[in-house]
C-alpha cells in the first residue's frame, strides 16, 4: 500500500485564466498583498504495490499531465 501525490501545474509561460480570475477576486476582496495565483491539479493515488519510480513517471507524463503545457512533480507520501 502506498500513497502518491502528483502535482500538475501549467508551465509559467502559459496563460492561467483560472488563476487570474482568483487573483482578480482576491483584489476585489481587498487582499492586495497576494500578488500571484496559479491554479493547478493535485492527484492522490493509492497503490496496492510499492510504487515504482519509472511507472509513476510514465503515468504522470503521459496521462496526468500534458507536458506540452504542464509541469508535474511526484511525491511518494507513504509506502
Amino acid at each position, binding site marked *: 500500500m502506498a500513497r502518491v501525490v502528483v502535482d500538475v501545474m501549467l*508551465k509559467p509561460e502559459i496563460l492561467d*485564466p483560472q488563476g487570474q480570475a482568483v487573483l482578480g477576486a482576491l483584489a476585489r476582496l481587498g487582499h492586495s498583498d497576494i500578488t500571484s495565483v496559479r491554479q493547478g491539479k493535485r492527484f492522490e493515488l493509492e497503490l496496492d504495490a510499492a510504487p515504482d519510480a519509472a511507472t509513476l513517471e510514465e503515468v504522470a507524463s503521459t*496521462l496526468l499531465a*500534458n507536458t*506540452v503545457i504542464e509541469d508535474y512533480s511526484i511525491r511518494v507520501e507513504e509506502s
Partner: protein
Amino acid sequence: MSARIGVVTFPGSLDDQDAARAVRIAGAEAVSLWHGDADLKGVDAVVLPGGFSYGDYLRCGAIARFAPVMQNVIDAARGGLPVLGICNGFQVLCESHLLPGALIRNDVRKFVCRDQWLRVENANTAWTSDYAEGQEILIPLKNGEGGFVADDRTLDELEGEGRVVFRYLHDNPNGSYRDIAGITNERGNVVGLMPHPEHAVERLTGPSLDGVGFFSSVISQLVDA
C-alpha cells in the same frame, strides 16, 4: 464510388451523428468507427467529432487519445490520411501530438455557445481547399476549453509555415493565442479547429451553410486523387 469518411464515436462523443449527417450532405458515405475497435474499415478520411469523450474529466481529449482506434488513426494520419478534429476532436489531436499546442479553459471561464466569424487563413489543406484564402465564414462555436495555447516558438513556427488555418474574427471568444481557431500539420492532411462546421450545413438548423466546404474539400481531393 463515393468517398467513405469515417466518424469515430468515443464514449461521450456528442456530435458524431451530426458529423455523419454533414458528410452525407456533402455527398460522401459516412462510416461509423467505434473507439474500441482498432479498425478503420478502409475509410478515405476520418472525422474526430465534438463532445466530451470520457467526460473530459482529466483534460479534454486526454483519455480518448489512448483508445484502441486512435493508434490506427495516428499511424494513418502520419501516412497522409485526411483527419479532421472538431472541438473535442481537435483536443484529441493535440493530446495525440498530431497537432502542436493544447487547449485550455476559456479565458472567460464559461462555456461559450455562439455563432462565430472566422477567417480562412490557409485554403490549401485537405479540409479547406474549397474555400478562398481570406474568406470569412460563420459557424457555431461551443466549448468550455477552447483556448489554444503553445509556446512562442511553436506559434511562430505555425505562423511561418502557414499552418494557422482559421482565426477568430471580431472578438476572440476564449483567449486563444494569436486568435487561432484552427491549425494543420506540416503536410496539411490533419486539421483541427474548435468551431463546429458540421453545425453549419443546413439552413434550418445552422447560422449559415459555411461548414459544407470542409467536407466538400476533402471529397473533391479524394475524387481527384
